[in-house]
């Protein structure tokens, strides 16, 4: 809609243009107020571009003069803001990208002035931390494209995380644990599908029940069995890092993208596969038809119930993979409520990503970024309490939901049971 060929701008578009322009100017001022004024002249900021222990070729660190860099970022934002006010920039994404880049870079330069900040380390932990969020979001995408809301990803991931570690420890085979985690995710999702399709249970209520039940059963098993049998039941080890030859030698990008464990690679694979399935296969077309207008799809001979069952179960398998990340993909043991709300953040990422696999992936990366940034900032001990930075992704999600930054429109039949 934004790239309409109409020459005249409507009043609302005009208003939007001005709003964006002013936002950029305000952010430019904020960069001056918080960072520019507080950066000392003649001090440098060092951005580490090498990750210790990685196979990537060593490159020199990026050293920038702190104050100049902050003011350059401010100038960039102010310039783009002024241009937006005067002429208007077509792509909202570009605007927001510039805004986010400049703000974050200025912030980091200020925060790490006279110190060193490991950029490569942060970027590589960003993808890892985004993995469970993205998998939860993808679980939502595939279910909701067929119009079944599944907010039970949190509960599914908890159950899968526990099953993964227990099976992995008992069989001494991590791949068996991974398979078990994925399968149990599918089973729980099948239960959800059965409740909401067969019994027409309110979909959000069923999801809530899964979350409560998941937290309950895993904590129960954990305190009854795992705590006393830590070594025999709850100590699986983790997947090894798989380095992709040659590609992992690329500086910065190598350790981030090509030196990960299997769960992270599988996540990326799921993103691509889901995009292809949804938009380039008959199954995807039918899924989207069922999500938008089940009656019409039914009239054309599509089995609405079958499509919904299969998609919700696939979603569960994906969430199961996400659960495996927490234990065998990361720490090698299960702790109570270790998913820590990642399933819900995945839900936000799904909406933020407008029910598209790549969109969901990108917004998960944003949350992963915020997550890893916070860890790094604690090391730097800056004067802003990290709690306020941690709030940022949630606030951004709420702003996105208001539709000011492009409206997120769910599939038309989302959440409605279908009756023939």
């Amino acid at each position, binding site marked *: 809609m934004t790239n309409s060929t109409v020459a005249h701008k409507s009043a609302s578009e005009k208003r939007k243009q001005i709003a964006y322009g002013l936002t950029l100017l305000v952010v430019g001022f904020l960069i001056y107020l918080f960072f520019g004024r507080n950066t000392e002249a003649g001090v440098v900021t060092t951005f580490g571009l090498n990750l210790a222990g990685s196979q990537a070729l060593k490159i020199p660190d990026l050293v920038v003069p702190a104050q100049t860099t902050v003011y350059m970022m401010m100038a960039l934002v102010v310039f783009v803001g002024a241009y937006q006010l005067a002429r208007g920039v077509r792509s909202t994404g570009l605007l927001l990208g510039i805004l986010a880049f400049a703000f974050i870079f200025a912030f980091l330069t200020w925060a790490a002035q006279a110190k060193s900040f490991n950029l490569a380390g942060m970027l590589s932990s960003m993808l890892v931390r985004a993995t469970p969020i993205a998998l939860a979001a993808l679980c939502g995408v595939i279910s909701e494209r067929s119009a079944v809301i599944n*907010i039970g990803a949190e509960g599914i991931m908890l159950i899968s995380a526990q099953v993964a570690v227990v099976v992995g420890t008992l069989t001494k085979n991590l791949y068996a644990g991974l398979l078990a985690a994925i399968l149990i995710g599918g089973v729980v999702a099948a239960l959800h599908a059965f409740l909401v399709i067969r019994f027409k249970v309110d979909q959000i209520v069923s999801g809530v029940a899964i979350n409560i039940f998941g937290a309950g059963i895993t904590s*129960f098993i954990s305190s009854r069995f795992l705590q006393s049998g830590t070594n025999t039941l709850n100590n699986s080890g983790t997947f090894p890092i798989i380095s992709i030859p040659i590609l992992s030698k690329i500086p910065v990008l190598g350790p981030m993208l090509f030196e990960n464990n299997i769960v992270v690679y599988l996540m990326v694979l799921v993103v691509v596969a889901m995009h292809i399935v949804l938009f380039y296969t008959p199954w995807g077309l039918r899924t989207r038809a069922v999500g938008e207008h089940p009656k019409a799809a039914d009239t054309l001979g599509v089995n609405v119930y079958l499509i919904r069952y299969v998609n919700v179960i696939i979603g569960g398998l994906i969430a199961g993979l996400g659960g495996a990340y927490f234990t065998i993909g990361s720490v090698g043991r299960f702790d109570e409520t270790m998913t820590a709300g990642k399933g819900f953040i995945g839900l936000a990422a799904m909406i933020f990503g407008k029910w598209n696999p790549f969109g969901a992936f990108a917004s998960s990366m944003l949350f992963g970024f915020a997550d890893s940034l916070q860890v790094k900032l604690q090391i730097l001990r800056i004067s802003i309490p990290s709690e306020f930075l941690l709030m940022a992704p949630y606030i951004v999600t*709420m702003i996105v*939901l208001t*539709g000011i930054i492009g409206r997120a429109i769910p599939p038309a039949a989302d*959440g409605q049971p279908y009756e023939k």
Partner: protein
Amino acid sequence: MSATVPPSKKTETKKAGAALGQALLVPSLAVVTGLLIGAIVIVASGASVTKAYGALFAGSFGNPINFFSALQVLFSSGDSAPLLKAIYPFTESLVTATPYIFAGLSVAVGFRCGLFNIGAEGQFFVGALCSAFVGYSLKGLPMLIHLPLALLGGALGGGIWGMIPGYLKARFGAHEVVNTIMMNWIAFKFSDWLLNGPMKASGFRPVTPNIEASAELPRFFADPLRFNLGFFLALLFAYLVYWFLFKTTLGFEIRSVGANPDAAKYAGMNIIKNFVLVMAISGGLAGLAGSAQVLGVDHWVGQGFSAGYGFDAIALALLGKSHPFGVVLAALLFGFLRSGATNMQSMAGIPIDIISIIQGLIIVFIAAPDIIRWLYRIRSLKTEETVLTRGWGK
């Protein structure tokens, strides 16, 4: 007497009685089935059901034999200590039920307007923090002023926390489920900061200072009995919510918007106003739940203070069929279960989390009454179904 009653009226009351019976039947069977499956889980984990549920009962109601022998002691020697000890489990259950009543009412009010407030946990926390702040920062006030102020602080804090998603929903159509979850996380991070910074008591632990005695909800018995005025306050609020929803014009509007927003709009009702108002009331009640807990029981707030209350509140509202009196019954049930489960954990070694499992099952059964009807072969009686949620942003 019966001769003066017209037969039509008699059948009417009979019908109403049957409807009430049906309304109570399914939730009761859901609870029973939940407990039965809970028993299966206990057996599967290799423990004794009789021992476990026995400890649960003793923990929630106390031992009746002890109670009567304590009464004898009281009459013979005038010593009330054994009696207080005997009623301790029962009063503890009521203490546990108190915040549940408020929290359940919070979600129930939302359901009545077609809004799903999943953020009771955050509102609870904000309410508790506000009450604690009023409680410890104002000094030298008489109780008649200080206590109401502290309660008001909690209601306002929670109310504002709930109102924001309500406004975003009404104005932009942003779904309240996601926004209340986001507000939960903002509340947790914000409270982390407050408890480690501005509101931190002296000492190492990230907790608030103790509130002044003048802000405490008065207790009826000597320590360790914590039974306090909060319980009766909760009952009063349950009645107020009932009166508001069913006896006032505004309550009628809210229920109309919940039943059919389009029709309500056509009838000239202001959807935006109703959404904002209901979320503010809902948040306020959740905030009061936090107030009741901090002013009546703990007297200070620490991290994780609200853990679990949000989901429990949803279960309570569902179990109580979004009716204030139903919520009170459900809250009493949960109060007894939770309070007894603590005893079960220490006496029978059954982790307290079994209650969450049972709760999850109860929610499923309540939300899918067809399962219960099918299990127990109950014929369906035509009753109006309340709409609980409406997908994203509609």
